[in-house]
């Protein structure tokens, strides 16, 4: 009798642990289950998938990493990282015009983007400090808003106000930048800086590993780990935990929040430059459109929430999300006979996953609040009933 009890208990415990695990990481689990079905349906070889994944990890990780600091400072996902992406793109247009090639071009692009990104970061931080409690929606709208300005600058100011010498960059009417710019000058210059290809055979291009890009990403990860331990990093976490308490213990919360946004914007600018040196062409008016979108979705797929995210989430998220990205057009074609369905599907997933993650987080927080309130209520009502 007792043995059965024990067994039941054990089962119950295991079940309970599983439930806790699921409730802790609902989004990644959903995603993994989904991938288990779709990856085989795409009929891609493992080698191809690994090759693609490595490319995409190198391409996107930096952008996703730039979202970490604002989350730490309690500001949610910084959808306004597109501002950084725009800064990166403007600097890329400029260095293409100056025709500076290779590694120097790459670093010059970063250098040029820095002041623009810092300026935009300050603006964004200032605005978000005025919208406390709804930073995410504000940052998203700010991204759309600045997109209008970006288009204005690139479409009307480049040429007449900002000198562009290279006529090939300009639209035929004489001002404004063309829709697509060939970034031949810096194409994959970092990726190929230390060329390593494994499993190469005569008929097979093998798996290319962009070591230098990964080194950059690793350096940045160390930076984040180090930054968390500094005074400013600690302040940031305190502000993220509870802004009012942090403020009353003497931390300038507004300044800390501003700083986190500035750093995030700068990193997003560098991230976008890394992204585009890998892609090799800049589509002037669309490249940055989905940057914030996909970065946020990747991070959330990796198990991060609006209030907590770490480096592990980033890499898990980029891997899972982009695996879905690679696989879904082919899977859509093989399952439903239409590749277009897969294309729409992956856009839907990237929006849907953000919606689900936000809902789950908010729901959970709500329940906790309710529980707290009930507990409080019980505490206050018990003595009353006694006196009655």
């Amino acid at each position, binding site marked *: 009798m007792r043995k059965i009890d024990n067994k039941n208990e054990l089962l119950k415990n295991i079940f309970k642990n599983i439930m806790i695990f699921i409730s802790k990481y609902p989004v990644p689990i959903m995603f993994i289950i989904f991938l288990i079905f779709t990856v085989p349906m795409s009929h891609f070889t493992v080698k191809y998938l690994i090759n693609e994944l490595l490319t995409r990890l190198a391409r996107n990780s930096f952008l996703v990493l730039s979202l970490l600091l604002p989350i730490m400072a309690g500001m949610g996902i910084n959808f306004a990282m597109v501002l950084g992406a725009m800064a990166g793109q403007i600097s890329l247009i400029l260095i293409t015009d100056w025709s500076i090639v290779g590694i120097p071009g790459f670093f010059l692009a970063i250098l040029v983007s820095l002041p623009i990104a810092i300026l935009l970061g300050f603006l964004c931080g200032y605005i978000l400090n005025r919208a406390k409690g709804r930073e995410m929606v*504000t940052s998203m*709208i700010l991204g*759309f808003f600045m997109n209008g300005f970006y288009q*204005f600058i690139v*479409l009307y100011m480049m040429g007449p106000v900002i000198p562009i010498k290279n006529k090939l960059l300009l639209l035929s009417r004489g001002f404004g930048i063309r829709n697509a710019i060939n970034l031949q000058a810096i194409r994959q210059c970092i990726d190929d800086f230390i060329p390593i290809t494994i499993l190469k055979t005569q008929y097979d291009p093998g798996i290319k590993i962009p070591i230098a890009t990964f080194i950059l990403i690793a350096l940045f990860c160390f930076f984040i780990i180090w930054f968390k331990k500094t005074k400013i990093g600690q302040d940031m976490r305190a502000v993220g935990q509870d802004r009012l308490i942090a403020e009353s213990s003497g931390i300038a919360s507004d300044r800390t929040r501003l700083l986190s946004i500035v750093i995030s914007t700068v990193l997003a600018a560098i991230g976008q430059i890394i992204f585009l040196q890998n892609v090799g062409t800049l589509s002037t008016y669309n490249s940055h459109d989905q940057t914030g979108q996909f970065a946020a979705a990747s991070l959330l797929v990796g198990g991060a929430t609006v209030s907590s995210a770490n480096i592990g989430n980033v890499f898990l998220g980029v891997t899972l999300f982009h695996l879905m990205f690679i696989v879904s057009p082919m899977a859509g074609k093989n399952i439903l006979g239409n590749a277009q369905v897969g294309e*729409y599907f992956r*856009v839907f997933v990237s929006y849907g996953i953000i*919606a689900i993650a936000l809902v789950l987080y*908010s729901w959970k927080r*709500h329940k906790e609040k309710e529980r707290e309130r009930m507990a409080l209520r019980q505490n206050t009502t018990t003595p009353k009933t006694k006196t009655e």
Partner: protein
Amino acid sequence: MKENLNNINEKRNFGQALKNFIDVAGWPRIIIGIFLILLFAMTPIAKLRLSTSLSDTLVRVGMNAIMVLALVPMVQSGCGLNFGLPLGFIAGILGAILSIEFNLTGLKGLFSAIGISIPFAVIFGYAYGQLLNRVKGDEMMIATYVGFSSVSLFCIFWLLLPFKSPVMVWGYAGKGLRTTISTQKFWQNSLSDILSLRIGETFYFPTGMFLFFALLCFLIWAFFHTKVGTAMTAVGSNPDYARASGVSVDKMRTLSVVISTVLGAIGIIIYQQSYGFIQIYNGPLYMGFPAVAAILLGGASVHKANIGNVIIGTFLFQGILTMAPSVINSLLQTDMSEIFRIIISMGMILYALTRKTKGNR
């Protein structure tokens, strides 16, 4: 000494009055209003016909007004700005394409489109409302993503649903809906043309569309003066108080979301009947934002909105959007309408979100 004080007082009074006016009207409304008047005054310089410009503006006001009106219930019940309006648009599009599939034309087609879309809108709105009740405080962000994901989900359905009408499906494949579907042969302007006025060659006033809008405005106004409507406003202004006086907060919020979604569906159908095209796939993705910007420009905040805000806001917003690009276009020979639209609408929303209000700590 005393005189001096009086003088100062008077100045203060005047200053106070001006400040009050600015507070009530809000800077953006004043600036945009002045700007709009300037633009209308500039029409002769820009060699545009005033009557054409005015007519264009009015048509666009009529097209967009109901979509703006759709935002009122949710703001009033405390759910904030309904960035999830595209969900209602989807219901409207479903109604519109089904009515075309059944080959219904004229007013019959239009009203059957509305009739078909309402059940969809109620179902979507109910589910959406249930969702929003569980995420109180984060509605706006989640609403945005509910809108985005529903639009992109329906992109798949537009491809796969078995529609047959040759006007709507791609010619060569014989399946999958086109990205834009013309309503010209079915019910374009069927509502606008009722009692419509034509003065001279260029001035056209879509009376029917405005009458319909007025009817809906009246219904919403009347609704907010019934018992249920008052309860809804109470939920928006103070949920705890509302709960204490026996109002079910969640029920009221759900109802407001359903009304908003239904109005969104009707709104997009009216838009399509005037515009002449049904835009599907990613068409409705960003269409909620101009509506939000319009109501904010009309003086609404994240917490308060009324019919007056809708009318003033739609007129100012659509006026600017019609006039500014055409004036700029004829003066500078460049088309900046898209950029202008983005900057004005997003700037307005940004202004409202960053304004210090009582709900904002």
